[in-house]
């Protein structure tokens, strides 16, 4: 009798009910619980709140480049949305273990593989929610009058895909290790790996084997020049999701030919798409890069407003009106006959990163690079592919002012001293409120002199602190009054040899005394 009681019942009776329907019912319940988990709510808040705050306080950039906006939030989505789901899905799948109720579940219709399937399915609705969130965000950005370019659907789809991957990973971890610490550690390790893979010192394409490939491109480029293998990467992540889901089912005890076939297919997709990411950049993109660098006019449309011609890459054509506002602002401060001279503003891109840490560029190399840059179109003013941050406005205003004042092509990042320096800095600062804000921001963070022009371009210049002090004093006065004074002494102020002290006398501002010899800026230009 005792022996009969102690004997474990073999071969349980066939389970009544349809496990598929029970799985869907459980998935529905878990799908409702998942977005209500504090970790997921915190993730959604951390994702959305800073962006909403930036828009409400007016700090957001109203000139988004959509081909950068589509992937630049992927790392954040991995960290907060993927992280929240990873922890919540892991805790949900471990709930029975944490509450020591695993034994009770043996009496229910669902066997562990079906239960695991339900936990995996429960992540899907939240991924749809994330997809909707991302779609709404990019649609709102695209509706802005200053939006440039177009988003890549595959890059956008990586956001919900990462959420699915991390949700599935949370379920898999719960089936492998019955401790809750593993999920947060995996998240941290993934975040460190993605961040580390973005370091420029690491070989370029390893990052594409991670769920999110973080890059630090020197500047946004037109869509035709983009080389991110986004479609293959999405397929790779999809393969990983399927692989992790199959692994979770297998870890829960599922066996069978269908699982093996599905797992093999997922592995094939992940391996194939993963390898395809490493194919060299297509000839079309390479040709487009060469064209954009050497013959940008072929890819651009030009528009003349008054005497000024603006040439922009197709994606960025909506910005020419805003460039014109800044250029008009600069030309308002110069005599009418000078302002009426023809001027070309051409958008340029540089795909090679000139700001790599530790790279030393000698003055000779700098001059050679600037000469090469100007050879394409001597005299054209360079404008980049960023706008709306104040600094870009100030850089364009500075380069236009330099061109108007000196009549020369932009120099190779040399200091512009004397009266020309004072005049150029004043012209750039008074052009629009944005250029004034950009000038203040750069002045606050620079030492020795204020740089004008993007350092990623070989052309630009700086105005030493002494000249900048005089220009700041001028900027505090009514611009019309200063413009009249400038117009009276235009010839002397724009002459190369006129000193800052003389400019101070002519314009009626105090110029600080020269600093000690060792702190002086070398003024070759």
């Amino acid at each position, binding site marked *: 009798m005792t022996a009969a009681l102690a004997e474990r019942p073999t071969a349980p009776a066939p389970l009544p009910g349809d496990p598929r329907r029970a799985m869907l019912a459980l998935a529905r319940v878990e799908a409702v619980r998942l977005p209500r988990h504090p970790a997921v709510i915190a993730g959604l808040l951390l994702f959305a709140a800073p962006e909403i705050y930036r828009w409400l306080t007016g700090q957001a950039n109203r000139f988004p480049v959509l081909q950068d906006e589509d992937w630049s939030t992927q790392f954040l989505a991995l*960290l907060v949305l993927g*992280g929240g789901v990873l922890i919540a899905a892991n805790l949900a799948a471990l709930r029975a273990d944490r509450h020591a109720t695993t034994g009770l579940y043996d009496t229910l219709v669902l066997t562990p593989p079906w239960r695991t399937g339900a936990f995996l399915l429960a992540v899907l609705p939240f991924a749809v929610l994330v997809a909707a969130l991302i779609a709404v965000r990019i649609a709102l950005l695209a509706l802005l009058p200053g939006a440039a370019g177009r988003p890549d659907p595959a890059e956008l789809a990586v956001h919900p895909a990462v959420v699915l991957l991390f949700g599935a990973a949370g379920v898999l971890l719960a089936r492998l290790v019955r401790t*809750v*610490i593993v999920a*947060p*550690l995996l998240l941290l*390790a993934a975040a460190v790996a993605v*961040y*580390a893979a973005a370091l420029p010192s690491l070989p370029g394409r390893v990052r594409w084997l991670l769920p999110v490939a973080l890059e630090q491109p020197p500047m946004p480029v037109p869509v035709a020049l983009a080389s991110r293998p986004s479609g293959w990467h999405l397929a790779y992540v999809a393969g990983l999701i399927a692989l992790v889901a199959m692994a979770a089912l297998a870890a829960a005890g599922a066996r069978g030919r269908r699982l093996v076939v599905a797992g093999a297919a997922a592995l094939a997709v992940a391996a194939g798409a993963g390898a395809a990411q490493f194919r060299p950049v297509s000839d079309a993109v390479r040709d487009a890069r060469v064209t954009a660098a050497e013959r940008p006019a072929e890819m651009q449309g030009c528009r003349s407003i008054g005497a000024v011609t603006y040439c922009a890459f197709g994606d960025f054509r909506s910005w020419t009106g805003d460039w014109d506002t800044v250029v008009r602002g600069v030309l308002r401060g110069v005599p009418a006959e000078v302002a009426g001279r023809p001027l070309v503003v051409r958008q340029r891109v540089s795909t090679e990163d000139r700001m790599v840490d530790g790279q030393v560029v000698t003055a000779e190399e700098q001059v050679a690079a600037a000469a090469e840059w100007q050879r394409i179109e001597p005299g054209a003013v360079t404008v980049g592919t960023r706008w709306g941050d104040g600094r870009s406005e100030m850089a364009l205003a500075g380069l236009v002012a330099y061109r108007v004042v000196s009549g020369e092509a932009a120099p190779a990042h040399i200091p512009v001293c004397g009266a020309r320096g004072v005049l150029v800095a004043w012209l750039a600062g008074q052009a629009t409120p944005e250029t004034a804000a950009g000038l203040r921001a750069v002045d606050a963070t620079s030492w020795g002199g204020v740089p004008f022009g993007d350092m990623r371009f070989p052309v630009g210049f700086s105005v030493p602190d002494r000249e900048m002090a005089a220009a700041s004093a001028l900027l505090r006065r009514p611009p019309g009054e200063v413009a009249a004074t400038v117009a009276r002494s235009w010839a002397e102020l724009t002459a190369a040899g006129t000193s800052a002290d003389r400019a101070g006398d002519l314009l009626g501002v105090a110029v600080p005394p020269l600093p000690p010899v060792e702190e002086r800026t070398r003024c070759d230009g």
Partner: protein
Amino acid sequence: MRRMSVRVLPLLVLPAARATPWTAFLAAAGVGLAIVAVPAAFRVELGVDDLVGLLRAAAVCGALGLAFLLDDPAARTIATVPAPRPIRYAARAGVIIPAAVAWWAVILAVTGAGAGAALPLGGVTVEAAALACVALAVGAVRLRSSDAGGIVAAPAVLVLVVAASRIPPDLALYVPPGDDRWAAAHDRWAVLLAAAVAVAVWAVREPTRRRPAITAGRR
């Protein structure tokens, strides 16, 4: 009575060490160590910014592990023992703190050995201590009403870290080394540390319910 309890403290340390669930902490400490040791072992050339980033990631690992160290499935069964709750937690702390300090010293040694320039170790240590104390404090608060503090404290640490890296620049907590705001940011970290310690000290008191009506009647 109280003095006797305190004298019991050294006797409790060894049993507390045995009862501490070390698995989570060891796993987290291992990941933290790997984060700083892998670049050091492969001699990856990293700048001060990146090394400080690695130390910060390791500090988060440590805090995640510590979040689970106060968990005690048997806590309810020993609520009636003569040694009061603060003494029991003090015994736990007497085990946890040396372990965490030793681990952090190893992390600093491994990172510092590979660094060319001087790292701001003091500041990063304040950040690590603040995170660790937040983890312990949240865990301790949760343990007043539950048996498992770590499953709330660990996500709370992650949320705090991400939130700290996303707050507006004028209130920033994570600032790059050499930044003008470094000192001010570390004042804020120190405030966070002090607040976490205060909350932890409050949370280890016995969670008794006051019954004013009965007390008043007995008086």
